């Protein structure tokens, strides 16, 4: 008996079951297709070199905030297990693009510069490095930096004043001198006490503890 093309499972007259492989294959393909398409679309989106160097640097600054936290204490959830594997989120520096955790900042930054990471971010170094910088851009940049520096100084209220600097230095020197004097005095006192006690010990051993009479 010919299997019905519409039916996936058929039972013949002897009770033996047979499966329509083509129908199953078609069904599987139709199920997989949307997933494959979505995946390739996502890949195309990421790999097109859409991320500019400026965007990348901004992203990088955000990520490097983690490194700036070095020598500080952070309380972490105890659900994060300490593990030897780099994969997944763990204790350390976490790269959410590649889903990797690193134990030290050097490894972490090496990873951030790595071609594999850059590819995952969607940054194309070749495209970016072809952009030329003109003299005018350089001039503008320097002017901006100079302005920023002036603004920062103003905000700090630290307009450079030589006489003020000299005054501060003198005060600092006086303070240091005072500290040194105190230290020297302390050392002198301690030494005097030591020599005095040593003298009396020896004297006692030799049997002349003092000038008082030994007779009772």
């Amino acid at each position, binding site marked *: 008996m010919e299997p019905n093309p519409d039916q996936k499972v058929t039972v013949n007259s002897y009770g033996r079951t047979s499966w329509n492989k083509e129908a199953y294959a078609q069904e599987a393909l139709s199920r997989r297709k949307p997933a494959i398409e979505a995946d390739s679309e996502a890949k195309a989106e990421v790999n097109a070199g859409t991320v500019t160097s400026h965007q990348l640097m901004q992203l990088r600054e955000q990520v490097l905030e983690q490194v700036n936290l070095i020598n500080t204490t952070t309380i972490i959830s105890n659900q994060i297990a300490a593990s030897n594997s780099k994969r997944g989120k763990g204790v350390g520096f976490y790269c959410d693009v590649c889903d990797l955790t690193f134990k030290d900042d050097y490894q972490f930054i*090496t990873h951030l510069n790595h071609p594999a990471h850059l590819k995952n971010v969607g940054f194309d170094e070749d495209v970016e*490095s072809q952009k030329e*910088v003109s003299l005018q851009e350089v*001039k503008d940049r320097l002017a901006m930096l100079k302005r920023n520096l002036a603004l920062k100084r103003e905000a700090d209220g630290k307009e450079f004043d030589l006489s003020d600097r000299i005054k501060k230095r003198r005060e600092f020197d006086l303070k240091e001198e005072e500290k040194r004097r105190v230290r020297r005095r302390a050392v002198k006192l301690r030494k005097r006490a030591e020599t005095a006690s040593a003298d009396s010990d020896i004297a006692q051993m030799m049997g002349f503890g003092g000038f008082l009479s030994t007779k009772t």
Partner: protein
Amino acid sequence: MSTEFRHDRGLAKRVSKIHGVNPVFLIEKISRERILDSFYWKRDCFGLNTATLLDRAVALQHIGGYDELQRPTPFICLGLKMLQLQPAPEIITYLLHQRDFKYLTCLAAFYIRLTLDSAGVYRTLEPLYADYRKIRYKKGSTMVLSHIDEFIDELLTSERSCDMILPRMVGRLYLEDQELLEPRKSEIDSDLESDESESGSD
């Protein structure tokens, strides 16, 4: 070419050769390796272009080669970065002569010393003998007070600067004989002349 790729990291791409080699070879291999492995390089020199390089150059606090732990200073890290980027000559000239950031001037002078030919180096750097701004010069574990004119003199007369072997220069007298250079006019000549004229009038 393939051997270059196998053994040398951090080669400059899409740049013209200088002194017949890839520009980064002007810094000797051991220094280059140390720079490429340094934390400053990996963190702060990544993805820079000529404009953003200035952000770092402006923040420089001193010049010098290595510190006491043989870590390269930011100064030579940025030097290598400039070799990789190869900014246009007019940009370099502008950086050399701007008056706002003295360490940027030093960086440009260092770059010029590495890349230009002998006559060009003399011609561009000698005017800076008149620059007396103070700079900090890190030599090993100590920080030395120096001046830009001293640094320029070191670049023009010695073989090493900032713990680096500089490209060999043709002697100035030879270049004068070849009529590639005018005899140097010292910056203090004008002072001497004015002194003489004053004393003469007395």
